[in-house]
């Protein structure tokens, strides 16, 4: 065998290995989706069924049994509400910091990131008791506020990095022409930063949607999100695998797609901008 032949063979083995590893990682997800189309009996068949008559009954049954749409709506409201609130606070701040940095800007950003590292369990008791006192337990409002706060530092940092990439020359030129601050923001900066803001929002929605600690501890049947609904399947009722799979598939599908779309922001956001 010549060297090129050997190199080619090695390449081919590497590609096959990559596919095998990827299939192993993806398998549980594939299996979950497959199980959601089985009947409960087929779901626990031994040996497991790969070929079967697919049924859609789980998807209609979970609506009757668990009020799926209510939980889905709660997830939509809390993740979008939290994201919107965080953007409302962070866009002006990130804008001001990026275009008028001072000596303290870096320290402020670092301090903001440090709040992200406060373990949730360390502040569970006060948050729980305050929510209880204010009558906010099991409301969407309390989750919106908490999700806004836990995502604010990440959103700040990503937006800051985006705004920094806008060339200052453009702004200086427009300021020379006497553009007002308001016009500067709406006509120049926002159109340039729009894509960045949208994908940052997407990342924040993904993080809120999957959040389980606060959802489990602060909500019950009224404001419970999908993460909390799925957690309730851990009780013996959870033996209904096909229905659990149907709920899980519906709960994860949109977010997995969102996740694929915002990979770049995800890398930046989750590494606090340290890996780009």
């Amino acid at each position: 065998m010549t060297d090129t032949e050997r190199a080619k063979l090695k390449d081919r083995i590497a590609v096959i290995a990559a596919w095998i590893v990827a299939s192993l990682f993806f398998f549980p997800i594939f299996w979950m989706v497959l199980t959601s189309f089985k009947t409960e009996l087929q779901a626990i068949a031994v040996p497991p069924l790969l070929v079967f008559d697919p049924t859609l009954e789980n998807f209609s049954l979970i609506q009757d049994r668990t009020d799926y749409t209510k939980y889905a709506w709660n997830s939509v409201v809390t993740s979008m509400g939290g994201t919107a609130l965080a953007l409302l606070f962070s866009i002006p701040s990130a804008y001001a910091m990026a275009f008028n940095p001072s000596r303290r800007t870096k320290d402020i950003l670092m301090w903001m990131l440090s709040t992200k590292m406060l373990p949730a369990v360390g502040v569970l008791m006060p948050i729980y008791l305050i929510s209880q006192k204010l009558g906010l337990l099991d409301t969407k409002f309390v989750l919106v506020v908490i999700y806004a706060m836990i995502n604010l530092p990440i959103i700040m940092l990503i937006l800051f990095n985006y705004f920094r990439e806008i060339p200052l020359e453009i702004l200086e030129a427009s300021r020379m022409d006497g553009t007002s601050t308001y016009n500067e923001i709406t006509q120049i900066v926002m159109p340039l930063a729009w894509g960045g803001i949208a994908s940052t929002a997407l990342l924040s929605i993904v993080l809120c949607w999957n959040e389980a600690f606060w959802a489990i501890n602060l909500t019950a049947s009224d404001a419970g999100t999908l993460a909390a609904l799925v957690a309730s399947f851990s009780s013996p009722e959870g033996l209904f695998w096909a229905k659990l799979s149907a709920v899980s598939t519906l709960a994860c599908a949109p977010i997995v797609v969102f996740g694929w779309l915002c990979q770049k922001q995800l890398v930046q956001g989750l590494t606090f901008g340290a890996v780009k």
Partner: protein
Amino acid sequence: MNPTLVRWLQAPSIIVLFLWMIVPLSLTVYFSTIRYHLLYPERSGFVGFSNYEYFWTDPSFMPALLNTLILVGSVLAISVVLGLAISILIDRPFRGRGIVRVMLISPFFIMPTVNALIWKNMMMNPIYGLFAVVATAFGVEPIDWLTQLPLLSVIIIVSWQWTPFAILIFMTSLQSQDQEQKEAATLDGAGFWVQFWNFTLPHMARPISIVLLIQMIFHLSIFAEIYVTTGGGPGVQSTNLTYLIFTQALQGFDIGVASAGGVFAIILANIVAIFLIRAVGKTLTV
């Protein structure tokens, strides 16, 4: 922009985050020094460090601390080693690479409660789970994962979710590696391992340390994966610190002791956070 406007634009974020940090934090510290039990509201008053003492001397504390360290350590080792190997494997372009990438990182987007329940039921169930089916097919006695090997089960579940995170970060950083240098080295006949030790690993040192620190922060507070699978048991075999504090607060109703545990968790997380903040600070250009 004039400086006053800049200040006004910055203020809201800073103020809300400051409140979000300082109010709960000081309340937790305050609660940790008083007697505060939801079932016995008549008992109150300052108790000094006795809540801390109670938390530390609780027979569940040492196992929980040990479990936390084992859990964090194992998941870190698994996800970083596997993540590095896999991201190098798919670094070269090949047909279907896009699909392979998507398949590899998807587990990271699955919500933790779903992730844990898929594994608990469909993989690790001792009768119907796929692991049991495979074991039986090979004539091996299937094991009840969550009862017999609870901590290992949680480690597997969390690793499945977080190895994709490591892959995602490493994949991104590998792309910024100097390709010409690599090609030159290949032409000079440098083998895979020589290149790995001399070019790839030094290039990846930073992303690896960042991934280690970030995962450490997240893994110190793993909760949902334990909550829906083992419930911390059997006994306290898979209880970590977060779960122990959770059981003391919301199931034991002892706010004082749970707060003392919370302060402990905060201190532990901050030891890691200091290093992370430093590493991040180096890359931030202001």
